[in-house]
């Protein structure tokens, strides 16, 4: 280029370095541009398109898809206030009003001096510190007007465990001290794994009985085997740290408190499936996690745990850190691939599955953060010992994110199966302030409500299945008697309407229609036939949506209709 | 409202792709144009001209009745608008025209007439036209605009292969493995073809080499974009050949079996190293090597080119050197391989096929071949002139020398498309008689004595033959305005009158009731068409000639067994620098060409809503040149060459290479050919529209 590019030298530098990689650098380039300008000017977007060879209309589509990106001037610092259930029930709505009043602006309207803009956002993973706020890059827990503008220490989750396995080092070692990590047993599992053949590694994981901790609960060994058997190269290993399920914050704690373990798990997984390149996709809101893992990756590479010939094993592996930009759907594995590839985060049609056609259409293994922590653990303590933890059908320890109206919110590492009642009342100290329980939301927004009299089932795959529930991401949000569930449902309705990607009709239309009905339910203006409408909408979404988001977008509502029919005061109108 | 609609299937009248269209007709207007998704060659795809540019048919300035010049007989004649003509009846106009033509024939012989047939008219119109010219006027002075576009391709391919048609079908394009596109701004000149080429690249992972001075849209899809200096094509192609030979990428088996001339050819490559090419063309030697390997190592590779190759003083050499590449590597004669001059006009292929050339009857049967001539003489019942006629530009020269006394121009606009317009206009002003037949008045019509109003493609029946030799039907969809008549009807009327005035005993045959009958006569005399009839086209939508019999499926790709000349001939060529190069006085190269929204002289598109989106001429100039001249987009500038001067607006764009400006030639008010030269290719007599020297000044 011999003409003055229409962009800042900082963006130019970025593009000089990464432009050659083309479209996959789109999201990073847009984030870079936004860092510089606080939004993405048209000229910068056009230039990025020229360099990365991305059609301009697609670039705009990407900017529009991710809620953290903006094509319009915004403000120096965005104040993002979580309004999803855990935080909403702790008064985040009031906080929004206070902040807006304080700044003299409406939601989304920048202050006159261009310094602040207030946004309502979905779960920030600060559920145990509700209400949670992200101001600029700083997370604020137990947010108040004062604390927002004077952020104190980064909020960390309380850890509760009878015996620590996955969380052994979280909070007790310096997360970025690789020596402390190793002294505390870190990388021991890696050493064991690298001494085995890849197929033996997969066998160990299969023997351990590990199932995915991201929500779907698929056997990890089986997934790896599928990918390993593919003969197309390159292959990829992707770590899914797009933890966005409302009420879930355990992965953030793992990444921030013990980043090397995740790296260890990734190396083992990559070795097993034959991938030499890994991506760690971390949601855009997790700015602190990003910082920690970014440093950890550098340190690991500096100590030859990443790069060529890792620890003289002959195995090459590198990890690229990728940031999301505000889209719940990108937690869905194929949407996450699309996002890395520089596209809107639309889930793909399956089959084909990631193991054969994943990232860049190549064979890919994708695992959640907690799953990878389990992998490291398995090779540390051995599959046999591992199997003794947890239950027969869901071996290994499991992390529960407990939040809401409970005495002791935090992360609970459970290695001996217990019931939901035990978790809330024995471990968690019961409902806060001795109040009565209204309901529990198990599994996040995509989960279901459990009535106070239905808590006596084991929190295992099998135990939940027996009562028609699922563990999902193991989020447990407690609502006390003072909570109007209609308000929570209204929040969930908006969550899904906001986070639906819009690709398939049932979800694109259904989440909107559902939110509309839940809105009027909250206002007490339900119409005759609304329950019928909801049931049709939810059946349609569940039965015909393209991905898990739509298929589960109505499950909480449906469960609420069952356990709290009084909230849907109007009799079911009969369809003719 | 919708009920009153009817739908008529036809063939797009613009370019050589020959898209099939469905016109929705309401109240005798084309209100919408769709394309059938299940029919070749376009499979539902259209470009802006086909979809939105057919409204010219309804333009109020359509010629609706015959006209006769008011100051008839006064020379030199002045170019006049419609005000310079009076309305006449068909009887009067036809009688007058017949009289004038007959007198010239009687006094000076048929060779004193020059006839321009039309690449926009149907095969049937053109067949009948040449039958009239040859059979009644007894001259072979008949030509059409192919001379001004692909004559060099024709000449080059005749020398090397013996046939000049495109050798691949459009249908094959999306499945190509390697394609080389050169001298073709395909996305704008053959938009629908470009979508198939891009499909090959984007969807089917074909590799694309683009060789072009202009950074065309296609170059964005290329693996190798070689931006060579204008006019240096021969060196580039020779260097590619040199690498192919040097690095052993030739297809020896193919050479042994199907090619001759290797011994004489090989030594002539010497010296054309990539390094030499780098010096001349300005493209890094390494890139040339890589591109040569890509082409040479491909399982199948096809070459596509346009006016950038043929409209050059070395156009024939260009075509030869491309054919040489294909012969060396065996990339011709199999599916997915071939050499493809992309045809310009919708029926430029058909017009040539139907005998609209000075040296051949329909089907390229030589006028000079006695046996052929006898066949036509017998059938038509006349005696024929054995002397090949003059080409378009030779006719201009002959007119200047007084050898030619009269023109009959059907559906062409030589006054816009000829190079060095000043000269061509002078000649026209002094002709004895000019008969003009068209649907609109244009720059040529302004010199006419008699104007006969014809009908548009949407108002008549017939066939067009597209770029890949596919013969397709057009069908009447609307009623013509006023008294306008189909060309074939006019020709018949005129021919019978001339025959009468010449006192010919018996007619050559001008009593057709329908174009289908005209086709049948042509097919009977032309073996490759014998299996094609209007009836078959109704059933099959289109057939690729050669198609010698009813049960023959047609021939989508050519040369599978042999070449028309037997073996392919590797033909030595050498590089000559362009006829005019920039100097201090005229420091920029001017290249002319087309833009997406317009068509040739603009007669049609400037009377369409297409003109709304691109209403005036814009000269494209590279940002660096623009900076030096202090010119920004939208500034008015003057362009001056040794031959003339025009004023236009500037468009600063990186599409033009540094040192070259590009000007579309569609705009009469800023006619590019005022600037271009009448320097011609020695073989094909095609003028160079792509390289001349100009100076650009900000106004």
């Amino acid at each position, binding site marked *: 280029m011999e003409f003055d590019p229409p962009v800042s030298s900082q963006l130019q530098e970025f593009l000089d370095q990464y432009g050659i990689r083309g479209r996959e650098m789109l999201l990073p380039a847009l984030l870079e541009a936004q860092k510089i300008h606080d939004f993405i000017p048209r000229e910068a977007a056009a230039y990025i398109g020229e360099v990365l060879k991305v059609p*301009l*209309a697609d670039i705009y589509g990407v900017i529009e898809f991710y809620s953290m990106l903006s094509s319009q001037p915004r403000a120096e610092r965005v104040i993002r206030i979580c309004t999803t259930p855990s935080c909403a029930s702790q008064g985040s709505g009031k906080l929004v009003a206070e902040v807006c009043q304080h700044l003299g602006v409406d939601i989304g309207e920048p202050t006159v001096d261009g310094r602040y803009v207030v946004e309502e956002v979905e779960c920030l993973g600060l559920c145990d510190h509700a209400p949670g706020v992200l101001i600029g890059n700083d997370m604020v827990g137990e947010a108040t007007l004062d604390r927002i503008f004077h952020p104190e220490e980064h909020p960390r989750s309380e850890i509760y465990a009878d015996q620590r396995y996955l969380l052994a080092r979280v909070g007790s070692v310096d997360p970025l001290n690789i020596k402390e990590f190793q002294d505390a047993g870190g990388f021991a599992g890696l050493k064991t794994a690298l001494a085995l053949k890849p197929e033996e590694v997969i066998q160990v994981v299969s023997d351990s009985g590990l199932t995915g901790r991201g929500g779907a609960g698929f056997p990890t060994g089986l997934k790896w085997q599928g990918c390993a058997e593919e003969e197309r190269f390159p292959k990829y290993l992707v770590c899914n740290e797009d933890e966005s399920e409302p009420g879930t914050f355990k992965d953030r704690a793992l990444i921030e408190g013990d980043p090397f373990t995740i790296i260890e798990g990734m190396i083992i997984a990559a070795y097993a499936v034959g991938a030499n390149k890994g991506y760690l996709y971390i949601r855009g809101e997790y700015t602190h996690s990003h910082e920690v893992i970014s440093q950890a990756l550098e340190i690991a590479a500096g100590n030859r745990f990443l790069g060529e010939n890792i620890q003289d094993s002959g195995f090459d592996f590198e990890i690229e850190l990728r940031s999301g930009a505000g889209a719940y759907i990108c937690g869905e594995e194929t949407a996450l691939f699309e996002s890395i590839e520089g596209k809107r985060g639309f889930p793909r049609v399956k089959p084909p599955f990631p193991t054969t056609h994943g990232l860049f259409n190549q064979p890919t293994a994708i695992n959640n953060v907690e799953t990878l922590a389990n992998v490291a653990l398995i090779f540390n303590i051995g599959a046999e010992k591992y199997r003794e933890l947890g239950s027969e059908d869901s071996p290994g320890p499991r992390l529960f994110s407990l939040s809401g109206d409970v005495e002791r919110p935090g992360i609970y590492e459970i290695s001996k199966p217990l019931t939901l009642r035990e978790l809330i009342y024995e471990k968690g100290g019961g409902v806060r302030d001795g109040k009565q329980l209204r309901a529990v939301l198990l599994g996040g927004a995509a989960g279901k409500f459990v009535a106070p009299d239905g808590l006596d089932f084991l929190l295992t795959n099998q135990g939940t299945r027996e009562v028609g529930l699922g563990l999902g991401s193991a989020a447990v949000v407690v609502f006390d008697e003072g909570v109007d569930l209609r308000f929570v449902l209204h929040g969930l309705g908006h969550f899904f309407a906001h986070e639906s990607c819009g690709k398939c009709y049932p979800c694109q239309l259904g989440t909107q229609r559902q939110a*509309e009905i839940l809105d009027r339910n909250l206002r007490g203006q339900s119409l005759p036939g609304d329950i019928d409408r909801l049931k049709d909408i939810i059946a349609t979404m569940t039965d015909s949506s393209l991905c898990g988001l739509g298929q589960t977008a109505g499950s909480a509502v449906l469960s609420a209709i069952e356990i709290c029919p009084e909230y849907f005061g109007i009799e079911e109108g009969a369809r003719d | *409202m919708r009920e009153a609609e009817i739908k008529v299937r036809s063939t797009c009248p613009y370019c050589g792709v020959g898209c099939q269209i469905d016109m929705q007709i309401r109240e005798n207007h084309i209100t919408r144009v769709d394309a059938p998704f299940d029919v070749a060659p376009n499979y539902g*795809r259209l470009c*802006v001209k086909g979809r*939105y540019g057919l409204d010219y048919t309804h333009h109020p300035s359509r010629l609706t009745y015959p006209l006769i010049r008011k100051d008839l007989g006064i020379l030199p004649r002045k170019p006049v608008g419609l005000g310079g003509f009076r309305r006449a009846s068909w009887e009067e106009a036809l009688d007058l025209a017949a009289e004038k033509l007959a007198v010239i024939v009687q006094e000076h012989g048929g060779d004193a007439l020059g006839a321009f047939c039309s690449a926009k008219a149907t095969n049937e119109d053109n067949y009948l036209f040449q039958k009239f010219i040859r059979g009644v006027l007894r001259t072979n002075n008949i030509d059409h605009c192919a001379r001004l576009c692909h004559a060099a391709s024709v000449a080059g391919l005749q020398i090397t292969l013996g046939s000049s048609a495109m050798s691949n079908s459009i249908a094959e394009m999306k499945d190509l493995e390697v394609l080389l596109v050169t001298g073709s701004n395909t*996305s704008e000149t053959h938009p629908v073809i470009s979508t198939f080429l891009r499909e090959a690249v984007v969807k089917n992972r074909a590799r694309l080499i683009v060789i072009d001075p202009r950074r065309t849209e296609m170059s964005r899809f290329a693996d190798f974009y070689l931006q060579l200096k204008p006019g240096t094509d021969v060196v580039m192609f020779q260097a590619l050949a040199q690498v192919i030979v040097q690095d052993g990428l030739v297809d020896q088996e193919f050479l042994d079996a199907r090619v001759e001339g290797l011994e004489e050819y090989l030594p002539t490559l010497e010296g054309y190293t990539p390094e030499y090419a780098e010096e001349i063309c300005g493209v890094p030697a390494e890139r040339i090597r890589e591109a040569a390997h890509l082409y040479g190592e491909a399982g199948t590779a096809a070459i596509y080119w346009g006016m950038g190759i043929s409209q050059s003083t070395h156009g024939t050499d260009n075509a030869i050197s491309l054919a040489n590449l294909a012969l060396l590597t065996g990339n011709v004669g199999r599916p997915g391989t071939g050499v493809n001059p992309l045809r310009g006009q919708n029926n430029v292929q058909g017009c040539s096929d139907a005998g609209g050339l000075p040296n051949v009857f329909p089907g390229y049967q030589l006028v000079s071949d006695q046996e052929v001539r006898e066949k036509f003489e017998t059938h038509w019942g006349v005696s024929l002139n054995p002397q090949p006629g003059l080409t378009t530009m030779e006719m201009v020269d002959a007119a200047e020398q007084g050898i030619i006394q009269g023109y009959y121009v059907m559906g062409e606009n030589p006054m816009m498309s000829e190079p060095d317009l000043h000269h061509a206009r002078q000649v026209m002003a002094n002709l004895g008689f000019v008969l003009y037949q068209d649907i609109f008045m244009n720059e040529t019509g302004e010199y006419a004595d008699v104007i006969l109003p014809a009908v548009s493609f949407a108002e008549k029946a017939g066939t067009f033959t597209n770029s890949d030799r596919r013969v397709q039907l057009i069908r009447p969809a609307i009623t013509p305005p006023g008294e306008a008549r189909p060309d074939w009807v006019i020709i018949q009327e005129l021919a019978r009158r001339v025959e009468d005035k010449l006192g010919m005993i018996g007619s050559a045959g001008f009593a057709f009731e329908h174009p289908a009958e005209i086709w049948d006569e042509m097919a009977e005399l032309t073996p490759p068409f014998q299996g094609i009839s209007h009836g078959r086209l109704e059933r099959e939508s289109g057939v690729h000639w050669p198609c010698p019999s009813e049960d023959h499926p047609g021939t989508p790709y050519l040369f599978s067994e042999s070449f028309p000349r037997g073996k392919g001939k590797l033909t030595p060529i050498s590089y000559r620098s362009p006829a005019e190069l920039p100097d201090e006085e005229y420091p920029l190269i001017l290249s002319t060409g087309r833009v997406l929204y317009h068509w040739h002289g603009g007669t049609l598109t400037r009377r369409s809503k297409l003109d709304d989106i691109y209403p005036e001429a814009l000269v494209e100039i590279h940002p660096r040149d623009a900076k030096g001249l202090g010119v920004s987009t939208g500034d008015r500038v003057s362009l001056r060459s040794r031959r003339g001067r025009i004023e236009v607006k500037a468009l600063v764009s990186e599409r033009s290479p540094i040192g070259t400006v590009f000007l579309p030639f569609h705009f009469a008010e800023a006619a590019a050919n005022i600037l271009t030269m009448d320097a011609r290719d020695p073989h094909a007599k095609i003028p160079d529209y792509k390289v001349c020297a100009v100076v650009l000044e900000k106004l």
Partner: protein
Amino acid sequence: MTEKKCLSLNINGIECQVPEGTTLLEAARYLDIDIPVICLHEATTAKGLCRQCVVEVEGRRTLAPSCITLAEEGMVVFTESERVVRVRRTILEMLHASSDISHSPALQAQMEKYTADPERFPGAKKRQYEILDDNPFYVRDYSQCILCWRCVQACGDDIQFTYALGLGGRGHDSRISTFYELPMPETTCVFCGNCVAVCPTEALQDKTEYLLEKGLQHHEIRARRRQERQGKRSKS
């Protein structure tokens, strides 16, 4: 070429055999079983958006979009089961509540066939947009857009490879958009109109037809064009 394997399956109780690689939709069409579609077009790649073509496959948890689901040996398929009909009807009702589909006879026919109630969702948020009339060739009325993406596909990798159109927004409020909402003449658009040709509603409509439907005569349309041109001239 290896010969394609033949698969046996059962659709609505009818046994049939189809070659491997056949979609359920194609298989049903062989049997003259009509399955409704919205987003599918013969010139664009099937992508399973509208879910109107879903069918019930025995043993599957969710319904299968027949346009992209390949036939498998032994499959038992129902194309009009209760579950299927409920989904189709509800999708049509929800769609009708969001978009103006009154100019799509095909969708109207589907509404009728599945006894979809056009007023099923009172108070629903309509997707309402200003009509965009920014070029000489076609107008865009995205209030009629049903987000089938065909225009984007036609503009992109399925026909034109021009990429002037993309998607903006997200979820229900997704919309077809150009780069930064620029008017069409300022984009890479080449006005091939292939997008208009595949549009199932009149979200994209040829301008001549649009004006004729507004009651203008041909000569008035011509006069209006002249005016627009002059307006453009005087602006520049």
